[in-house]
């Protein structure tokens, strides 16, 4: 059996949805970030597949950039998470409800 590009895309979509679901239902900040990473990587997968199929470079380039950005974001998030932990003593996002209405 040969694997078609849109099979890759379908897989990517599924991963993306899983990630989104994770963000929706998890309360732990770190887990949420992991789910976000999942979504980003779904995109990566898609890009790689497509650029492979059309044998273009641009997709791969994009992927690299995305990885870099993801790394940077990880750094930011950890910073925020630590600050958040300092103040609330937890990283449960439901504890963040000072700002409302």
């Amino acid at each position, binding site marked *: 059996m040969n694997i078609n590009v849109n099979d890759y895309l379908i897989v990517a979509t599924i991963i993306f949805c899983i990630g*989104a679901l994770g*963000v*929706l*239902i998890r*309360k732990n900040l770190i887990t949420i970030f992991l789910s976000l990473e999942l979504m980003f990587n779904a995109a990566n997968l898609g890009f790689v597949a497509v650029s492979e199929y059309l044998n273009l470079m641009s997709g791969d380039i994009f992927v690299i950039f995305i990885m870099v950005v993801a790394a940077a974001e990880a750094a930011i998030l950890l910073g925020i998470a630590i600050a958040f932990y300092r103040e609330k003593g937890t990283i449960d*996002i*439901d504890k*963040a*409800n*000072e*700002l*409302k*209405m």
Partner: protein
Amino acid sequence: MNSKDLIVWLIPFFPLLGAILWGVFGKYFKNYSGYLGSIFIIISFILSTVIFFMVAYGHSFTSTLYSWIDASYFKVNISTTVDRLSVIMLVMVTGISSLVHIYSIGYMKDDKGFARYFSYLNLFVFSMIMLIMANNFLLLYVFWEAVGFCSYILIGFWYEKKSASNAGKKAFIVNRIGDFGFALGVMLIFVNMGTLNYSSVFSGIHLLPPYLITTIALLLFAGAIGKSAQFPLHVWLPDAMEGPTPVSALIHAATMVTAGVYLIARCHVIFSYSPSASNVVLIIGGITAFIAAFIAMTQFDIKRIIAYSTLSQLGYMFMAVGIGSYAAGIFHLVSHAIFKGLLFLTAGSVMHGMSGELDLRKMGGLYSKMKKTAITFIVGGLALSGIPPFSGFFSKDAILASLFNKGDYFFWIIGELVAFMTAFYIFRLIFNVFFGESHVDKNLHVHESPNVMTVPLIILACFAAVFGFIGMPPFNHSIFYSFINKDFANSLNFSPAVNNYPWYLLSTVSVIAGISGIYTAYVFYIKKSLDLEMLKKRFKAVYALSYNKLYIDEIYDFAIVRPMKNFSVFLWRVVDSFVIDGAVNGIAQWISVTSSKVRKVQNGMLMSYVFTLTVGVIALLAYYFVR
């Protein structure tokens, strides 16, 4: 501006000048305002006599001062017409008002509002003169309202008295109701004739369809009803007696209230082209004449009695103009002005002597104490009850005769009946006040009035005695008739007198009516051969009806005034505050409630934020797929 015009415009000028002077600088003039004011009026009286003879031996003319309103096709000038009708009115008005002015000097002597009083009075004279001289309907309307306003302030002259200020307000508002019709009539004339000048209107009126003429006539007559206090708008006149007595004499007997008659005489062309309207005039006149006399018979307030008699006399006049004998109407107008003015002034002097007492049950036997007043009063009374040779006899007789000759027998009978009642109530008054035993409380010092008051009375009395002869029957051969009727020539005399009975028969009938009236009064109040109380008991209902003025005020209050007030309150409280404003505030309320709901979206929980975002995405995708 030639001499004629100058004289014409000087006649209203002096009273106006007086009004402004006493009005603005009153406190500097003090009592002089009285004398000067009277002098002003006398001057304009002399001037008007001059004009009178100019017209009598010359011919009528008009004179324009300036163009008042000029709005594209609506043009009105301030200008006068001077013809026989207006000069007669002029002389009468200025004459009587000068007498009243002189009288007032005495009457109002120690009133703190002396200057104010004379300023008002002059203003009134000015307005009345202009009303008479106006040569177009708008100007007429303007001064029609102006005299109404003057009577408003004069009735309410003693504004501290609630009753007085109420009476003034009532007079003004009731007049306005009449003027409402009048204004509509004027507009109707304008939109159909394109002009408001008497001459052009009268010359063109016959071109209009009959129904229009009738409508116009009736609307104008509505104004007349208001001003001349005819039924059903007569309610204001009796209350108007709250004002100073000279005012009652001048405005509410001699001049202003007769303006209605003058109006119809002035518009005789219009009325003569509309028999139905004229019939309405006749009927209203008859009703008023009768009910007024009926009410007058049982009143105790002397001024009110005279006021009601004024109403019924006005009723006579309207009957006259109603059947198209305008000359007779005007003749009675003038003579009535004289003797009724006399009656009021004498009543005033009685009040003066009795220091403000009005109830005839508290009087009696005053003849000895105030002879001049008493005699003049009796002269007036005789004139009113139509005893020859006093003026009232001739004028009233002229009307009754023309009624009979026209074949309106019903109204003739009413006329005679009213004549009887008139004689009765006026002599009931006289007997109760001047004769019989005195009911005056002892510590009240009764005295005759000063000469400044009595002299005018005497003058008037003389006129009342002799004036009639210029209307020597048979009326339509008399001097007056031949003088005035030139003006009514252009009216379409529908069906001239059908049958021409000998005048002396008719006169005898009315004289008998008068005398019998006087005799009845004599029997009741001097001989006391008949028991009044018993009569009152027997005709309880009738008596009550008469005594309570047919309950008309109460009916109005119940049927019109209260409902209107309640309706207004309803409009304000319910419609305005509740419905409309409620709607407005309701919207605001709704918005704020919604917003308080909307804000809940931002509930501070990160999950829900993510959720909304996702929902948004799904919605967009759904839109694509579903579409």
